[in-house]
């Protein structure tokens, strides 16, 4: 155990005392649920606090009676035991009173639940698809779609660099939405079950392959809201955050235009022939976000779980087999079908990269047009 660890352990013990006495002030000692930035999230917060305080009051009464008894009715103080052991009146009383309290809780809870489930009259719809281990967003009305990957560098995760402020809660492409708009999310998944959760919006819904779930939100304040996948989805479950950026109406429209322009440029790029160096550079970044989680940055995979690409039969001989497995995946394993996930350019680049990196050196160049032909 290094010195830093010992210090941390000491700090933790000290912190435990502080947290109990100071009630946990400061951002790092957050002890409660966020109030969030939507009407629903505030209602949920109020309901949470209501139930919490009811529990506190019941706790004080029950534990109060118990501790009074523990202090007063002890043998060492010479207390003689009474022998009563039955009272139907009392039993009926403490069956009915909790029941009535529960009815009091159920009424606001039911109201809130009904409001949360009302996804009608949405102003816009975004389809959210969970993948191992990233999110895909599809703006149904504007034709914009993109993947959103964790952008925290590996060096930070592996403790080779200092961790940033938004460690593990930052992505390359955030999902951008307008404020004061009823947004409907259609939530589904491509491989295993994930769960879409942004605490500040008070929405959490499982993303289930073959099912489409609906949730809605209306954000009041512009800002950046961070969440995470909430359903265990395999190795990198802890590394697929959600970042929602809420913009004012006009800024949002500008963003939509930018996205559309970028898509035009991408289409142009896939029409031309690429050189090896450009493909390798682009391929390395595509590999980093899509392949490295399993096959590892060095291409060596994890023995017994994820095969190596370095020196593999598939990546060094017949191109059509290699292309097939990347495009269509391998059923029954974690290898997903990347055909529908990546563009022609990205697929061409990553195939070229895999066939030439890690000492595979086949010299093969795969062009976007080859991918188009194979689709």
């Amino acid at each position, binding site marked *: 155990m290094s010195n830093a660890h010992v210090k941390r352990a000491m700090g933790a013990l000290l912190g435990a005392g502080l947290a109990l006495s100071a009630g946990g002030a400061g951002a790092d000692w957050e002890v409660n649920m966020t109030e969030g930035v939507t009407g629903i999230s505030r209602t949920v917060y109020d309901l949470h606090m209501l139930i919490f305080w009811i529990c506190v009051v019941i706790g004080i009464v029950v*534990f109060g009676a118990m501790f009074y008894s523990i202090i007063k009715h*002890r043998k060492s103080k010479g207390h003689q035991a009474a022998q009563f052991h039955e009272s139907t009146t009392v039993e009926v009383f403490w069956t009915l009173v909790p029941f009535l309290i529960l009815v009091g809780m159920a009424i606001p809870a039911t109201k809130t639940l009904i409001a949360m489930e009302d996804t009608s009259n949405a102003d816009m719809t975004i389809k959210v698809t969970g993948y191992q281990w990233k999110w895909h967003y599809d703006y149904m009305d504007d034709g914009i779609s993109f993947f959103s990957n964790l952008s925290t560098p590996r060096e930070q995760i*592996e403790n080779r660099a200092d961790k940033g402020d938004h460690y593990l*809660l930052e992505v390359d492409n955030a999902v951008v939405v307008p404020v004061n708009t009823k947004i409907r999310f259609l939530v589904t998944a491509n491989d295993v*079950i994930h769960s879409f959760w942004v605490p500040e919006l008070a929405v959490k819904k499982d993303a289930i392959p073959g099912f489409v779930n609906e949730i809605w939100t209306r954000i009041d304040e512009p800002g950046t809201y961070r969440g*995470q996948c909430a359903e*265990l989805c395999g190795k990198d479950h802890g590394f697929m955050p959600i970042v929602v950026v809420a913009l004012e109406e006009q800024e949002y429209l500008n963003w939509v235009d930018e996205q559309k322009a970028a898509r035009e440029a991408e289409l142009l790029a896939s029409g031309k022939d690429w050189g090896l160096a450009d493909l390798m550079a682009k391929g390395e970044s595509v590999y980093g976000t899509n392949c490295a989680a399993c096959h590892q940055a060095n291409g060596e995979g994890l023995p017994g779980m994820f095969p190596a690409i370095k020196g593999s039969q598939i990546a060094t001989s017949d191109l059509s087999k290699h292309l097939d497995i990347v495009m269509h995946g391998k059923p029954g394993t974690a290898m997903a079908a990347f055909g529908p996930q990546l563009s022609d350019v990205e697929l061409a680049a990553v195939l070229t990269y895999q066939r030439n990196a890690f000492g595979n050196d086949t010299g093969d160049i795969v062009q976007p047009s080859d991918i188009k032909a194979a689709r």
Partner: protein
Amino acid sequence: MSAVISETHHEEHPAGIKRWLFTTNHKDIGTLYLMFALVMFFIGGAMALVIRAELFEPGLQIVEPQFFNSMTTMHALVMIFGVVMPAFTGLANWLIPMMVGATDMALPRMNNWSFWILPFAFAMLLSTLFMSGGGPAGGWTMYPPLMLQTGDAFPFVIFAIHLMGISSIMGSINVIATILNMRAPGMHLMRMPLFVWTWLITAYLLIATMPVLAGAVTMLLTDKYFGTSFFNAAGGGDPVMFQHIFWFFGHPEVYILILPAFGIASSIIPTFARKPLFGYASMVYATASIAFLSFIVWAHHMFTVGMPLAGELFFMLTTMMIAVPTGVKVFNWVATMWKGSMTFETPMLFALGFVIMFTIGGFSGLMLAIAPVDFQYHDTYFVVAHFHYVLVPGAVFSIIAAVYYWLPKWTGHMYNETLGKWHFWLSTIFVNLTFFPMHFVGLAGMPRRIPDYALQFADFNAIASVGAFGFGFAQLLFVYIIFQTIRGGEKASDQVWEGAHGLEWTLSSPPPYHSFTTAPEVK
């Protein structure tokens, strides 16, 4: 004459390893179950410490995420099926024949078999950690499609679960047969000790639900190897159906893990309050109500899967109802203490700790029942805090309380009271240091089952890790106390505790090999 000869013949039993392998004696089998649970407690605990060591600070330090996931999965399977359930079965074996005035369990050979399946089942389960692709890492809930990505371990995990289920079902049949057929004259159902009652109900829950689990995992097996599509949407199946089937087993399972604890608290508290249990009949009815409700609340584990509104409302309201009979139990325990003449020996301390901390877990349970708020709690550390409060200072504390309470009866020796109190206070302080901060990080937004986390969760996680190591090492004291008591110590009287009532206290300490060779009279 021949009767006399066979009597003496019965008293003879093999010594050494053969005694334990071939035993059909309820006390020997009870000891085997309890020792097995104790060993597994440390194995499951070591896994928990791997988890807490990795979560001590942000970043990946000690284990790979895949191995981390198999630790969370295995920790749960070991603690549920290898610790709490066998420990309760061990207590049932030791105590039920003595409490109802029987010689032994009704089905002694099956009793031997139901125990000896377990070491093999767990050897197989643990061996999967060394297989290609590692151990199961899809969580103990085994949701498909993720569970279907398990490597070579998969069929071994399924088979191990089948074996554990067979063991539990046989154990339950034995408990029911013993209670219903072997009670001494005058031991009417409504005179049985509450521990016997809660186990009777638990045994029915086990028989009703273990086959459901067996069915669910078998469907997983055929989905993976035989081309069926029960849970595969692409083949016309339904991944959510697994969750419904699993939790139809899983929620009654939660009560399987806690009802015998209610029975233990209801035995210990009256003894040390020197006052009869308050509301015996209402305790029985409350237990039965909880068991009934446990079958109609399962989908509160899956509020986020996208059920229709009517379904969410139904499961929210039925779940809230559970608070009523559970509340009745807590109120009855407090009323039992009220105006008693209390002393605070170690079993009483653990029983009181159980009542208080189980109730804290009950409060968070009530909060989790509220569906619209559960969307914020679901799959966060708030849930982890909740079920650890009901299972560790809940179920596990009750088991420890039971061991201290009946150990003098079993061994004929008193345990060391000073060390017992140390054990209680260390356990209580560290268990709260471990699990209380988990409420905070959960509410602040930390999902469960993640090997690494954002920086704002760092401080409370460090505290929880320190607490976990403290709690783990405090349990070594428990082992020391148990073995010290087995080896010797102050002689225990037959009644052991001044306020103890019940048939088991009329037997000698330690009791004869066959508990009641002539049925006692119950007045």
